């Protein structure tokens, strides 16, 4: 590793992102790594290592690493951290930066498109509502309007349109 290749501003960039502040407090005790259930199954996934790489300014290496998408968001690391680093949130901050630079997995774009189209992740058709009616459950509706406005996305041509308001 060459220090000249490091970006000393990266840690500040992460700390400026909501949830990223805690990275400043890490003193590398590795309590997070010891209890991480993902790390127990994938030794290359190591929360402390991701924090150190970030603090060292290995910006490209962190943002393009497939490892950052493997957090199960179980929050175990946060419960055992003596420094309130809140690694789940720190990693969310890192992933948000990575996503803005085009490193997000394809599912991220699909999720936003589904919300803009359906107002919910899973489609609700007459089939689902018939099943619900059989059990005496009230129907559910798709109301994507608010989600289109918030996300600034319109559904593709010919897809589910505006709901009645």
């Amino acid at each position, binding site marked *: 590793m060459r220090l000249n290749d490091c970006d000393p501003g990266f840690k500040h960039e992460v700390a400026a992102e909501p949830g990223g502040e805690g990275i400043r407090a890490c003193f590398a005790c590795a309590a997070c790594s010891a209890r991480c259930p993902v790390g127990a199954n994938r030794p290359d996934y190591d929360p402390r290592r991701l924090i150190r790489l970030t603090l060292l300014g290995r910006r490209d290496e962190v943002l393009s690493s497939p490892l950052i998408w*493997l957090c199960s968001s179980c929050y175990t690391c946060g419960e055992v951290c003596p420094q309130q680093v809140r690694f789940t949130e720190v990693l969310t901050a890192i992933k948000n930066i990575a996503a803005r630079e085009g490193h997000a997995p394809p599912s991220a774009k699909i999720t936003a498109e589904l919300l803009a189209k359906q107002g919910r992740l899973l489609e609700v058709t007459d089939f689902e509502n018939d099943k619900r009616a059989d059990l005496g459950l009230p129907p559910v509706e798709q109301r994507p309007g608010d989600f289109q406005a918030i996300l600034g996305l319109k559904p593709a041509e010919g897809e589910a349109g505006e709901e009645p308001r």
Partner: protein
Amino acid sequence: MKALLFLGCTVPVRNLNYELSARKVCEILGVELVDDQALACCGYPLKGTDQAHALTIAARALAQARAHGLPLVALCSACAGTLAEAEHHLAHHPEEAARVNAELAPLGLEYAPGVRVTHLVRYLLEEVGLEAIKAKMTRDLGEFTFAPHYGCHYLKPAEIIGGLDDPEAPTSMGRLIEATGAKVDNYPRLKDCCGGGVLGADEDLAGSLAGAKLAELNAREVTAMVLVCPFCNVMYEGQQKAIAKRMDTKFKVPVVYLTQVLGLGLGLEPDELGFKLNRAKPKELLAAFKE
């Protein structure tokens, strides 16, 4: 007692047994659940890549709850956690609340701090109370042993949603199971994560996380594993066969929802609680209810 029901995306489409049993149990316990079709996604699916918009979407639900003047009660632990975290974050970051409100204003909504968000199970314990729930029990499930799976977002982060359970030694689900007279198995892997959070990114990894717990419970021969979250259900019930296949073994771990167990104790019949929709069927339990 009245609460606004946050169904989320998954439960009303994939987990009708959970929804049905939750509604029936609430009816018996005197909790009126109010439906609002405008409530939909909690924002969680966007959080990893776009937390600004995820927060606005969560704030939208909080603003709707505020308009109803009711606490927001969720069946999904991810929804409950996301909404509670959003409430906490916005209440402590006025500048973020202002940003979110600028986006909500065109929708005719306004977020203001103070909305109570809970998982339904917690609401039952805190509002109805364990003693009142016990008093309504009409059927003794003493011959059965259940293994609770608390999951992660039901317990953590403790600094935001703590107070009910110690995340290192949770008891709330166990107390409710015992209210039916049934026994509780607090097995060694009690606190393991289901892995559902990484299912989209790495199926093998997610399967390893869930598989360890399934293997342990398979050997302990409990009546059923008990869940309070539809994402955990995806792993333990939906993926159970696929995980066993990958591990080159076979599992027969019955999976039920806590509200189904409570419903049986409260005198409801399996059909009223949607047990027909359980795929990893609790055969021993259901056999006891056959004429």
